[in-house]
């Protein structure tokens, strides 16, 4: 029970905040969105040690599939889930090709995914090309910011439970082993490609669903708004900030990031990511396990809560 307590407290605070006012609701919504994308990224990055700069593509795929289905008259909530499944399927295809590569090569490959996907839609004039698809007419009646926020909350809880389960499962051990020493893991019987593809598929499911929520929120999918490399980078920064490979890390990271970003945007508008990157570098050089590591080293009493 103790291991769940920290998470329960955080989720309750978020729910309480969301009920104060619509301004707070907005902040909670965005914090949860960042939690979902960084927690899902953590599955491959934290456990598997693979940096995926293409995470934003999964949000985009989810958003586009969502839009195309909603236009056909399908329920937005069903469409979200189908968007997630579609993005997992794309992850499977991309993973089979790229996850044979090791560390940096995989990272570079995924860096190309965001522009590639953008140009595919704009150049190929797919789903409305650069103009995108407007969803206002189809969704305005169903729109409820509370429901969208709580779906994100539910997703975040599911990923938390999943990563908790995974950290002591065969898949979790295998991914960590591959991260620590690829060759030694292979000669210990770990099927590298299989483990990583499974992790990649899981990792792509949640941003896919979240993509549907983004599209729902802004009523408009177009390459510029739903395929944003910034999201990939934010997710990576949050994972590093909070503690790569820990369950609590991305959650704390997202909370701190969202709080700090507001301050930075007020005092250094436009430079927030740059300054943030610098902060992360300083933090990582002092505490390689991010905030989670820092806290559990400083305050031994918290250790049980920070997994």
């Amino acid at each position, binding site marked *: 029970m103790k291991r769940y307590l920290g998470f329960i407290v955080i989720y309750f605070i978020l729910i309480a905040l969301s009920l104060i006012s619509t301004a707070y609701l907005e902040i909670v919504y965005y914090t949860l969105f960042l939690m979902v994308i960084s927690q899902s990224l953590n599955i491959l990055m934290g456990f598997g040690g693979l940096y995926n700069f293409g995470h934003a593509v999964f949000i985009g795929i989810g958003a586009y599939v969502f839009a195309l289905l909603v236009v056909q008259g399908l329920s937005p909530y069903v469409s979200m889930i189908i968007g997630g499944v579609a993005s997992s399927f794309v992850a499977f295809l991309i993973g089979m090709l790229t996850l044979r590569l090791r560390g940096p090569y995989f990272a570079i490959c995924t860096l190309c995914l965001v522009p590639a996907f953008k140009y595919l839609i704009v150049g190929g004039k797919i789903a409305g090309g650069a103009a995108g698809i407007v969803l206002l007419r189809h969704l305005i009646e169903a729109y409820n910011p509370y429901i969208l926020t709580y779906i994100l909350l539910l997703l975040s809880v599911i990923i938390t439970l999943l990563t908790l389960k995974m950290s002591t*499962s*065969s898949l979790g*051990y295998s991914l960590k082993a591959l991260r620590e*020493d690829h060759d*030694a893991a*292979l*000669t*210990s*019987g770990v099927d590298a490609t299989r483990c990583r593809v499974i992790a990649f598929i899981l990792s792509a499911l949640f941003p896919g669903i979240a993509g549907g929520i983004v599209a729902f929120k802004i009523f408009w999918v177009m390459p510029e708004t739903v395929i944003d490399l910034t999201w990939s980078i934010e997710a990576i920064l949050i994972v590093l900030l909070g503690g790569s490979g820990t369950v609590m890390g991305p959650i704390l990271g997202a909370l701190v990031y969202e709080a700090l970003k507001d301050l930075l945007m007020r005092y250094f508008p436009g430079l927030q990511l740059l300054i943030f990157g610098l902060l992360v570098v300083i933090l990582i050089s002092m505490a390689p396990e991010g905030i989670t590591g820092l806290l559990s080293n400083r305050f031994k009493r918290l250790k049980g809560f920070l997994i």
Partner: protein
Amino acid sequence: MALLNVDNVVKRFGGVTALRGVSLVIREGEILGLIGPNGSGKTTLVNVITGVYPPDSGKVIYEGRDITKMPPHLRCRMGIARTYQIPRPFNNLTVLENLMVSILNGRRHGKISVDEAKELAEDILEVVGLSKLKDYQAKSLNAQGRKRLELARALGAEPKLMLLDECLAGLTPSEVSEMLSIIRRIRDEKNITILMIEHLMHAVMNISDSVVVLNEGMKIAEGKPEDITDDVKVAEVYFGDRELALKFVKR
């Protein structure tokens, strides 16, 4: 009966030929010592057998099956496990978790649950004497602990054939004799065939049933340990001088 046949294996790295047509046979139940000067191709041969490198030509046959093109993790699951010369533990995992990796993935007898794997891991840690350190991170182990962890991780896969790449190097004399008794115990109790690379002559001559000598990527001798010590060619390679070698062998 032959458990593993290495047949005329050639391995080149750019201009360097590390193995020039090496053949050897490992018989079931024996401890085979593999010796030779530095750079003679011993570790490369282990890498070819475990599938880390594909050979440029030649074959590796295990239990009568050609495994030359099989990926490393499948070879592990067929019962070929190894240790690394410079230990390669999964640093940020605990000792127990290190072992869980090979038990959950590499077992010859198929997959088991995490709880069953934990029990097996505790048993193996008992055998290699790491039980007390099971919850420490692998990076906190000393040299001896790391060598033992390598051995434990290889045992986790329940191998038929274990390739020990200098598992005694860097240990103190008392640690060496402890390690040798562990290796004997593994062979006798678990019925595991062992290929052992070693520089420590008294150890390898003491424990091996037969010995193969490599030099510059070629096999220059093989036979019983006592025959190898009397072999002029082997002595020459080690002394670097024929006269000296002849004197030594006559004595």
